[in-house]
Every structure is written in structure tokens, then in C-alpha cells.
């Protein structure tokens, strides 16, 4: 595959356009400037994670004896719990100060953007291509796209408004549920193959 084709694949798998509304619903309670900062920060962390998996992914997973299905299940289960939180979100909840922590690394950077799908894809292609520079270039190109989407996404809420966002949280929770269960289904397929 050419570098550009790889970059496009990575971009599509990371799926920033599809994820943005869901991410926006997660950060909707923060002031606008903070939202922009969170999204760019998470995008950057996701980039680091993608690079880490390109160079050390196989070593890391081999060291801990983690199989590909476990990777998929991890992403799926963490995302599914996030989706549940979004759907059954109680706004009047006033627990201690620990609650309402800003989303940090989990769940936006990983497993939403740099999810198990992207991690596996990066590891598989870097094994197939054997050209580190090419893959890194592709990741960088893909991330230029991701960051552009993320930089513009917070403006979307100006369009929808506060009430729209609150309604969107429910719908996006459902969508996120679908994404997470898809990860679990993919993981199950891989897992069942090992049983045969």
C-alpha cells in the first residue's frame, strides 16, 4: 500500500468524524475553551499511543502474553462501560469531589481513537511493510486529519445548543454501545477461532 492509502486507512479506522459527537457529549459540561483543550490533548495522547504500538506493540503484548482477542475485549468492555455511564447519566448526582473527573486518556484517547482496531492494524501493517518510516509518515498524515477534525468539533455545539447536546448524549451513548459491542464481537470471533 502507498503511504497515502495507509494514512487514509488509519484515519478511517480512528474515525474522528464519527467519534466527535460522542466525545463532544462527554466533555459538554466543561467551558468551551476547556473543551477545545481536552480534545486536542486527547488527540495528541492518542497519537503517542499509536506510535507506541507501531514500535513496541508486539514486544509489549508478547511480554505480557496478551492475545489479540484480549486487546479487542479490553477496548470493548471499557467503551461499553463508558456508554452505560452516558446513557444512565444522572445530572443531579452530587457525590464527593472525586466524581466528575475530566476525561483523561481513558476513554477518549484510548480506546475511542486509538482503539484495539487501530492498534492491531498498525501492528499488522508495520509487520507486513517492514518500513518504519513509511508507517510513521502515514500515522502522522492520518493524525493531521484527526487533529483538524478535533479542532473544529467543539464549534459543532454552537450549532446544536445545550439542550441538543443533552439529548445527543443519550443517542451517542447508544452509538458508543454499538461500537463497543462490535469490538466485543470481533474479539469473540478471534477467540472462538482459538478454541477450534
Amino acid at each position, binding site marked *: 500500500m502507498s503511504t497515502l492509502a495507509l494514512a487514509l486507512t488509519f484515519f478511517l479506522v480512528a474515525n474522528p468524524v464519527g467519534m466527535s459527537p460522542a466525545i463532544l457529549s462527554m466533555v459538554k459540561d466543561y467551558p468551551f475553551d476547556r473543551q477545545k483543550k481536552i480534545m486536542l490533548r486527547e488527540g495528541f*495522547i492518542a497519537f503517542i499511543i499509536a506510535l507506541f504500538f507501531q514500535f513496541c506493540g508486539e514486544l509489549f503484548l508478547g*511480554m*505480557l*502474553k*496478551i*492475545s489479540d*482477542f*484480549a*486487546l479487542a*475485549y*479490553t477496548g470493548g*468492555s*471499557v467503551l461499553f*462501560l463508558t456508554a452505560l*455511564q452516558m446513557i444512565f447519566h444522572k445530572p443531579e448526582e452530587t*457525590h*464527593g469531589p*472525586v*466524581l466528575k*473527573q475530566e476525561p*483523561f*486518556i*481513558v476513554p477518549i484517547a*484510548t*480506546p475511542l481513537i486509538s482503539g484495539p482496531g487501530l492498534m492491531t492494524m498498525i501492528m499488522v501493517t508495520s509487520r507486513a511493510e517492514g518500513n518504519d518510516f513509511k508507517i510513521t509518515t502515514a500515522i502522522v498524515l492520518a493524525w493531521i486529519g484527526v487533529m483538524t477534525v478535533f479542532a473544529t468539533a467543539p464549534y459543532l455545539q454552537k450549532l446544536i445548543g445545550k439542550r441538543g447536546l443533552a439529548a445527543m448524549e443519550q443517542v451517542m451513548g447508544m452509538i458508543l454501545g454499538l461500537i463497543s459491542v462490535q469490538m466485543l464481537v470481533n474479539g469473540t470471533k478471534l*477467540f472462538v477461532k*482459538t*478454541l477450534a
Partner: protein
Amino acid sequence: MELINLSIILFLIMDPIGNISSFLNMVQGIPAERRRVIIIREMFIALIAMVVFNYLGEFIFNILSVSETTLRLTSGAILFLVAIKILFPSTDSLRANLPSGEPFVTPLAIPLIAGPALLATIMLFAHLETSQEAVLGAIFVAWIAAAAILFFAAPIQRTLGNNGLMACERLMGLILVMLAIQRFLEGIQQLVKSCQL
């Protein structure tokens, strides 16, 4: 498995980096010298618990007549829930509801360092490996690394900052979820295979 793999897994489940902030919260207001005494004492208590489980594991196995499959499923499930609490902090989590005052045995030695997930893992390793000495070696390596990290908890927190520490905590939580799921699914693999006989 080799010594290095065993020790890395044990080290990750001890999760000293993730425990730094709760440890520092616990010992707030206690002078630095006293803290060192506390760390060394608590780490030795944790070590004793680990070594005991390394040797007693097989005995517990027999007395309860549990199978290896059961142990995999159980330790996977416990580790999963512990790790999920790290990723989705709530007020009733292990780390949020710590009794104040100087830690003695609980909560630092058990369960923060030598928690149920770690003890179950040690039991599993002791059962799987040919010699318990191999596991003992891995326990020592992981324990020394964990002790060193807790010993330098305050400087590490200063260098990483609160955000850096939180990042480490989150990533560790995610790795723990991976380990837990891997363990659990291995258990299911074994279960399915034993049913096909």
C-alpha cells in the same frame, strides 16, 4: 514463562505507580523519616503475604478442591473489577475510601500492594510453574521494584506532576484490564477444552 515475564506481570498487578497518589494521601502529615519506616514495614508485610501464598497456594487448591480453570476465571474477574475501579473512579472504590491515619497492614500492604488479585495470580503461577522457587524469584524482583517506587513516591510525584501521575494510573489501569481479560479468556478456553473430552 520466563522470570522476566512473571516479574513484569506481578509488578503490574502490584501497581505501585498507580498507588503513589493514594499512598501519599494516606501519609500526609507524617514526617519523612517515619514514612520510610512505614514503607519498609508495609512492604515486608506484603512480601510475607506473597511468599505465604506462593507456598500455601497448592495446599489451598487441594483443600478447596478448586481447579486451575476456576482460579483463572476468579483471578481474572477480580482483577477486572479492581482495574475498572481505577479507570472509572467512584466514591466507594478501594482507593477513595481509605481509613485515615498511619497505615498498618491495611490498606497499604493489603490490599493496595498485595491485593486479592495479586495473591490469586501468585497462586496460579505457583501452580503452573515447575518450581515454586522460580515464582519466588519473580516475586522478589517485582517486590524490589515496587518498593523502590514507593520509597521514592514523593520525588516521583514531583517530577511527573499530578497529571503525569494520573496518566500513569490510567494506563496501568488499562493494562490491568488487558491482563484480567486475557486471564479470564484463558480460563474459558480451558473450560471449553475440558468440556469437549
